[in-house]
């Protein structure tokens, strides 16, 4: 993690410097006054509203919030899937809208929520697609490609399943294969949109543990997570969004309060500390309307 921070500090070219930038380490990925809206004319709806965000280097950031708060849109904007109305996303201090697509894919990998693969594609074949940003028409397969694909298979513990078609695998294994493809991209940054949605508890854990391993290996990760408790448990940095704005950001144990939970989800709860890990736990959840009377 420290070695990575040292690598990314050469990005201090960032001249846009709001007050909250720590002077020593520039963030690998940051949003500055980012605004985005959908639709035209009277149907126009602001989804992200003048938002500032910095991903801490070498850590796992979780973005949480109620449905429709703009968290997935934010993640997509960070990966340049949307063009912002105003503001910018800075990758190592450079506006991502000006980066060539290929260069961007060498520095930032995205695992979107909706992933479907061509029928019959095997795990190893999927992971090989992750090498695309490093290949070209006349440089289609190198020793590096081969080594990195092997490493990605090993990192996601998929060696035994390498030749299995994706359709024939469990949800957790499939999700690990997609993450392995992102690993094969060899990017210092990885963004994941709800990587554990539609997975049961055991498979969720598989994926979250892989994400922790990647952070331990020095990557900077950000993920949109639906479940607040999992977010607290597996993220180093929590970003809570409401109506296109960030309402709280910081270490999970610092930012999660009963007031925040009420604001985000409209529920009352009792907060406890996980005796084993110290992360916040939500108990005794009830609708805020009823308890107010």
């Amino acid at each position, binding site marked *: 993690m420290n070695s990575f921070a040292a690598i990314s500090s050469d990005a201090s070219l960032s001249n846009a410097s709001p007050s909250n930038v720590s002077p020593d380490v520039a963030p690998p990925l940051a949003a500055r006054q980012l605004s985005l809206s959908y639709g035209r004319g009277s149907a126009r709806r602001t989804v992200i509203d003048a938002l500032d965000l910095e991903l801490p280097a070498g850590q796992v950031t979780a973005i949480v919030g109620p449905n429709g708060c703009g968290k997935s849109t934010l993640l997509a904007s960070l990966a340049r*899937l949307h063009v912002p109305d105003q503001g910018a996303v800075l990758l190592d201090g450079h506006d991502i809208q000006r980066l060539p697509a290929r260069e961007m*894919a060498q520095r930032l990998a995205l695992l979107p929520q909706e992933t479907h693969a061509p029928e019959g594609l095997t795990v190893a074949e999927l992971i090989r697609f*992750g090498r695309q940003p490093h290949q070209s028409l006349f440089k289609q*397969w190198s020793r590096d490609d081969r080594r990195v694909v092997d490493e990605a298979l090993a990192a996601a513990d998929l060696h035994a399943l390498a030749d299995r078609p994706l359709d024939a695998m469990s949800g957790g294994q499939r999700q690990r294969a997609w993450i392995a493809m992102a690993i094969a991209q060899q990017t210092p940054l990885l963004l994941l949109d709800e990587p554990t949605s539609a997975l049961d508890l055991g498979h969720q854990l598989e994926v979250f543990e892989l994400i922790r391993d990647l952070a331990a290996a020095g990557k900077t990760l950000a993920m949109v997570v639906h479940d607040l408790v999992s977010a607290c448990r597996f993220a180093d940095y929590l970003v809570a969004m409401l109506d296109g704005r960030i309402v709280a950001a910081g270490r999970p144990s610092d930012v999660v309060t009963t007031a925040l939970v009420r604001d985000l989800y409209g529920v009352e709860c009792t907060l406890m500390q996980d005796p084993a890990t110290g992360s916040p736990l939500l108990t005794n959840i009830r609708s805020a309307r009823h308890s107010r009377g």
Partner: protein
Amino acid sequence: MKTRTLTPPACPMNRPDAGVTPPPGSWRLSWALGERDYSILIERRACFVCLGLLAALLAVSLLSLCLGTLTLSPREALAGVFGYGDPVSAFVVQELRLVRLAAGVATGAAFSLSGCLMQTLARNRLATPGIVGIDNGATAFAVASVVGLGTSLAPPPMALAGAATATAITFALANDVGTRGYRFIVTGIGVGAVFGALTQLLMARVAIDTANAAYPWTVGSLNARDGAALVWLWCGLAIGLVVACYLSRAMRILRFSDAVAQGLGYRVRACRYTALVVSVALAALAVAVAGPVGLVGLIGPEIARQLSSHRGVSLIASALSGAIVMVAADLVGRLLLAPIEVPVGIVTAIVGAPFLLWILLRPAPRFQS
């Protein structure tokens, strides 16, 4: 810790990438130029499929040179191709059948390649130029040119203009292709119907002889081919095949969702638009030669897909399958009710319509999300 690989030594005898094991099922061709290594991967199965299809195409072509009102033996037909043998068969082969064969091969390959590109870029197996009304647009404009309505342009440029117009209208109404491929198809069917009606209107309003001259354009036939249009088509096909080879890597990625493709560093919109332009141009040039035989664009890619592996998009195999289907359909049309000739468009429609139904009724997982 991040490990960096050492920069490759400049010594050409010790190239780091020499002898890398390729992924299973592929051959790796590599060469060196100066200090840089180059490599391409060739999928074995795709290679075999293309060779097999090429052999089949040669067989069908030979058959089509041999059979007809005057039946020749393969030896006589080949002798005719190269200009010796008896003068009558040489004339039949060179002046009649060879040109017709060239038209059949080119239109079949163009329709099919065009269909495969459009299916891939719209992520839907129904999205072929024939279905989304591009053929109809090209036909309407070409017929307008034949009946001499307000223009002195020859059919090929008019067909191009018509195809471009139909595509532009479909695009404007459907609000882009891609994420909403279904909407693109439905809009295209509507636009195609309008152009089809326009063609009928044009035919109804001119003298019977002019309408007769324009008739082959509306059913699709290799009988009414025009020499200049055929040259245009072969040039377009040559360019289209080169661009298709270049696009084949991008086409593989376009089978994933847009977000995945973009995440892998592809400029999805640019890839789509390039493929779309090639697809529309090929369809238009083919219509200018043979009229709307667009169902070949549906059948050809499907045959290629059944034969090929899931790893890539079989553009070349599609072109070859399309050529085979076209030549075979034309041959059947010529022989079926001889001496009356059934236009090739009608033969492909008789075969293609049940095929279309089969695609609709069969669960279609390949392009669906």
